[in-house]
């Protein structure tokens, strides 16, 4: 097993389960991905999309139904988990309840036969890194959730693995603790510079932590890209919906030229940028609430008229629901205060109106 590697390659990794009725369905479907040393990859997707399954396959806790996993030139998907040498942080921490913090953290080192004289300083270093010095003799039951999570992280990093796997490590923490621990994870990753695969359903976590994001939906990879790419240029409607493009309007295609599409429906007329080839006469335009501005567009273009239907005050801005006369509802983030029932005009920059083929979902 290599101490360091150049790349971890997932080649058409597939994992099938037998569903009720005898048919098999693929929880992970032909996942292909290459991870470089030191890279932070986020597997992002809604619950049940297969991201945790994929992580378990990489760890060796689940066998593959198809495909292979390679560490540089060595094939590793045939190895049991205890021989892959990866560190893993579990969602509900999985700390051994009958062992103290110190024995939990040193467990991996003891399993690998590291000399006792070397174990103590390494455990001390790991606990210092996660800021838990002084808690060595406590049992997990005596620690708070945030502390338990940090013990789990220390346990995974003390073995100095080439790859760290994290399965939604923050989802059991409350909001404030989540933010703090997220910053911790970022800091630890910078210090250790180990390749990390991080599974989450929270796009904020993925955007803030990852070098690259892999968006998964229905077991299949939808998009792989940098946070900026995935945020601003989702490749399809599923990714767009998941990444916070709350306004999705299904309209009729009027004209198409040079990648720009003009659509109309009801009392709405918009021009946007085409992201995927369109075939039928119907298409969806997706816009982020933050990218709809109050007021008329340049020359009156891409402007929608409506009435304020609901205002949710949020401190530095408000989430405003604007209803058009034809019944469409737009969600707008506005810094400018508006009143309920007020008639407003909003506009969308053409480059930020993304057009996709209809997918039939509301």
């Amino acid at each position: 097993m290599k101490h360091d590697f150049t790349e971890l390659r997932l080649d058409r990794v597939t994992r099938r389960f037998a569903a009720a009725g005898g048919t098999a369905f693929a929880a992970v479907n032909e996942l292909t991905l290459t991870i470089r040393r030191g890279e932070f990859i986020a597997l992002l997707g809604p619950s049940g999309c297969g991201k945790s399954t994929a992580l378990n396959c990489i760890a060796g806790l689940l066998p593959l139904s198809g495909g292979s996993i390679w560490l540089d030139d060595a094939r590793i998907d045939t190895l049991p988990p205890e021989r892959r040498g990866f560190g893993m942080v579990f969602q509900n921490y999985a700390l051994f309840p009958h062992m103290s913090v110190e024995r939990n953290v040193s467990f991996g080192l003891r399993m690998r036969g590291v000399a006792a004289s070397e174990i103590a300083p390494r455990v001390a270093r790991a606990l210092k890194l996660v800021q838990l010095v002084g808690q060595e003799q406590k049992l997990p039951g005596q620690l708070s959730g945030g502390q338990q999570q940090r013990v789990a992280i220390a346990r995974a990093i003390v073995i100095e693995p080439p790859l760290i796997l994290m399965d939604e490590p923050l989802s059991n923490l409350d909001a404030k603790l989540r933010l703090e621990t997220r910053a911790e994870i970022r800091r630890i990753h910078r210090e250790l510079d180990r390749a990390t695969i991080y599974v989450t359903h929270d796009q904020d976590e993925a955007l803030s932590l990852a070098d690259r994001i892999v968006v998964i939906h229905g077991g299949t990879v939808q998009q792989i890209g940098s946070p900026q790419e995935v945020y601003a240029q989702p490749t399809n409607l599923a990714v767009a919906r998941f990444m916070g493009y709350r306004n999705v309007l299904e309209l009729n295609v009027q004209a198409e030229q040079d990648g720009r599409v003009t659509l109309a429906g009801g009392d709405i007329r918009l021009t946007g940028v085409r992201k995927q080839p369109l075939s039928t006469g119907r298409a969806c335009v997706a816009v982020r609430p933050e990218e709809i501005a109050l007021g008329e567009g340049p020359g009156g273009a891409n402007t929608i008229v409506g009435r304020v239907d609901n205002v949710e005050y949020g401190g530095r801005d408000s989430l405003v629901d604007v209803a058009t006369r034809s019944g469409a509802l737009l969600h707008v983030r506005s810094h400018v205060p508006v009143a309920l029932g007020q008639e407003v005009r909003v506009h969308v920059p053409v480059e930020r109106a993304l057009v996709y083929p209809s997918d039939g979902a509301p």
Partner: protein
Amino acid sequence: MTTAAAARAPLDRSLLLIVPAAAFMILLFVYPFLYGLLLSFEPKDAMTLENYRKFFTDPRLWPTIWTTLRLALPATLINVGVGLPIAYRMRVKSRYQRLATTLLVVPITLGTVLIAEGMLTYFGPRGWLSQTLQFLHLYDGPIRLTHNYWGVLISLVVSGFPFAFLLILSYITGIDPVLARAAATLGADPAAQFRHIYLPLLAPGLAMCFCLAFVQAFSVFPSAVLLGAPAGPTRVISIAAYEAAFEQYDYSLASAIAMMMGFVQLAVVAAVLALRNWFYRGPVVGGKG
């Protein structure tokens, strides 16, 4: 003021719900026990240890402790010792597990008396087992597994193994399997997972299971009479107590014997729990390497 009293009243009254059960227990469990304890010291209306002296000098009484231990300890060791690896192997919820648990409930439900009759028919010198062994030339002549020590021992295993197995299985399935998975990612192979994760977490449950199984085996009664030789080799302590009560009508002596029975059980349970504490104080709590 009245509201405070009213707020307290419903709560107090619902505590009364437990009174019937508590009273019943005290009347029919604690009181007979105390009465029996007292009675064992009063064979002739005076406080004396006469009964206990009689117990330890009568050659038909004190050897019963050893006779019963000779049966109960091996049976319990077999039941728990074989039950543990099998239950561990079957810890994953599968068709086999469900089948095994359902089938194993049958001997427990049928009870020791039916098992005794079944064994007399099947394990007897003319039963199917005997015939099979002779047919396969594994044994010469009729087997002698009934009306002796072996009959009682086998019956203790037949009735005790399902109980031990099911209890251990319930403890094992109560341990979160993600712990073993975490250990695997840290380099523990299946043997190490059992040794470092499951075994320490099972230790309290195993000790409890051993105690319960032993106590059950030590009180063997119908099997010892029907399948054993109650006059001699399998004269267990419960038989001695029964005879004192219902054949000699010496309730005082019978109580004394029952107290001795309880005392021996308590001694073994205490020893097992002490052993468990001694074993697992080391690796589990705060070891420095």
